[in-house]
């Protein structure tokens, strides 16, 4: 059992605040992804959990034990680094065996675990090589095998795929998901790649400016962003936002059209680009750029002077300069508070 509880963890580097009082619970065997742009504090949070960084305030609990005063070796964790950190002076075998030898396991057990994890990561033919003789992808496999061989309660991964080329990343992503699910460890995975986050995570914690903005299931994060930032960060292309003006009996004026909206003083209208279809009545969009992508067409347009993007079926020909009317799917419309930037339920 390795539930991770983070209570009010904050971190200052001099005058710069990297983390503002973060609270987060990661369940046993959960795959949690920390997602955010660079500088949002996601790596700092991971390093605090690993014990490579000390929090300025707050507590870290792993498996019911408070660990924030313990060194990394006493926390029952294993970590995979962005640049792999495979020891160059040791063979692949000795790299994977490194932690096991530190734990003083008997030789037979070391060999058994190294062989098993090497087979799992498909590197059994590389065991005698040195890291200088390996490709980036192979080094990545060694780094993951080294972490898995420890049979830790928690595996921490710091952008493990970001140094791989696109094709390899796709392959490793699927493989990692399978291997980690089978290993039944709790995983915390840091990335800035939203596709990676969506495809791997049980839950995603979206981070911005040292705060966790939303921690929820990938589809929830996508469909019901808790804040304007989440909508504008997740999704490619991201959510569209339009200013709205309150009208009569709960109706809102958006770009000359009326929509049913929440009963508040001020709100901003938001819709995902794929949640619209061309119709007789709807938002009038002046088309600027048309990008046919095969299954659908990406249209960049202007609505009421605001940039606006739509992903449409590719069966209809659209040309720049044309004015099309787009009808948003009513239950996909979201509203945000322009003051607090938070979602209005």
């Amino acid at each position, binding site marked *: 059992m390795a539930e991770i509880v983070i209570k009010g963890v904050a971190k200052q580097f001099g005058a710069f605040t990297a983390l503002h009082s973060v609270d987060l619970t990661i369940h046993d065997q959960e795959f949690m992804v920390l997602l955010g742009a660079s500088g949002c504090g996601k790596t700092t949070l991971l390093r605090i959990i690993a014990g*490579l960084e000390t929090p300025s305030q707050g507590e870290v609990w792993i498996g019911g034990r408070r660990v924030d005063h313990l*060194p*990394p070796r006493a926390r029952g964790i*294993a970590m995979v*680094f962005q*640049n792999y*950190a495979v*020891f160059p002076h040791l063979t692949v075998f000795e790299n994977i065996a490194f932690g096991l030898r*530190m734990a003083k396991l008997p030789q037979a057990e070391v060999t058994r675990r190294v062989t098993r994890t090497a087979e799992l990561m498909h590197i059994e033919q590389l065991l005698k090589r040195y890291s200088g003789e390996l490709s980036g992808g192979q080094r990545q496999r060694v780094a993951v095998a*080294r972490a898995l061989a420890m049979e830790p309660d928690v595996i921490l991964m710091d952008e493990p795929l970001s140094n791989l080329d696109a094709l390899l990343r796709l392959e490793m992503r699927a493989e990692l998901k399978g291997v980690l699910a089978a290993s039944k460890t709790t995983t915390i995975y840091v990335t800035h790649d939203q596709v990676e986050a969506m495809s791997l995570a049980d839950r995603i914690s979206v981070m911005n400016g040292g705060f966790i903005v939303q921690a929820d299931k990938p589809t929830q994060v996508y469909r019901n962003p808790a804040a304007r930032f989440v909508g504008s960060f997740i999704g490619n292309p991201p959510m569209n936002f339009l200013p709205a003006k309150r009208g009569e009996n709960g109706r809102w004026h958006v770009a000359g059209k009326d929509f049913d909206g929440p009963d508040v003083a001020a709100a901003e209208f938001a819709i995902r680009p794929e949640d619209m279809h061309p119709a007789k009545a709807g938002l009038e969009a002046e088309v600027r750029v048309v990008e046919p992508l095969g299954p659908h067409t990406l249209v960049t347009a202007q609505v009421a002077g605001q940039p606006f993007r739509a992903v449409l079926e590719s069966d209809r020909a659209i040309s720049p300069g044309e004015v099309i009317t787009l009808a948003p799917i009513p239950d996909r419309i979201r509203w945000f508070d322009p003051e607090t930037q938070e979602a209005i339920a």
Partner: protein
Amino acid sequence: MTAEASDVPVAATPQVAVNRAGRFLFWAGIGLLVLWVLVPIWFLFVNALSAPAEVTGFPKRFWPSFDLASVQFFWNFQGVTAALWNSVKVAVLTMILAIGMGAPAGYALSRFDFPGKEFFRVLVIMTRAFPLPLLALPLAVMFIRTGLDDTVLGLALVHAMLALPFAVLITFSLFSGIPVELEEAAWTLGCTRLQAFTKVVLPLALPGIMASAVFAFVISWNEVFAAAVLTIENRTLTAFLLQSLNVSPLPLKFAGGAALVLPALIFIFAVRKYLFAMWGIANR
């Protein structure tokens, strides 16, 4: 020159001439530098390995006659072997002291942020800014008071101070070249800070540390001023040769010179790759 646009060869010729002159200067410069270094060394070895009579002869032969009379004379000269042994003892002790203090300082500089770090780096270099003659007299007085005068340890301490800046800077650049993540990975895999250092950092840095140790050895081996001032009975080879310079015969000087230069040359050649590390040139 000419208004005709088709007149390309005329325009190109001065360009070729400039290129050729440039290349000539380049190679002439290289030739000059090589001669600057190699001629004295050649001169030293030709004279050391020739018969005593040939030393004053002219013209010189390019290859020495490999007559070992000069070397033999030098070797049997009263006090030479003792001085040579002293040199080795001082140099080894210097090496141990300089690395023992310099490597931890280099590690601290590369891994930790502490107040006054930049100032400390400047200070390390500044130790070389004080002329040794200025320090020699007070040092000699102090050494006599503490009983360190005329001892191997006393001289090695002074030599270690001379070698320390290089030891600190070379090891600093060495440790900086080893990614911190390797150490962090070792910590997460069950190592204490010390274990991570001995199991991961040290094996990777060892060749470079050896190189900077050899460099400290050579600094001590070649140093003459402090050795001449601070020792009387226990002279090192450099001090011994300096003392007997005006009374010893020419073949002895050449043989002694060669005996001094040879180990230094071999050592520096062996570790040349790591000395570049001092200037931050990557060689991994």
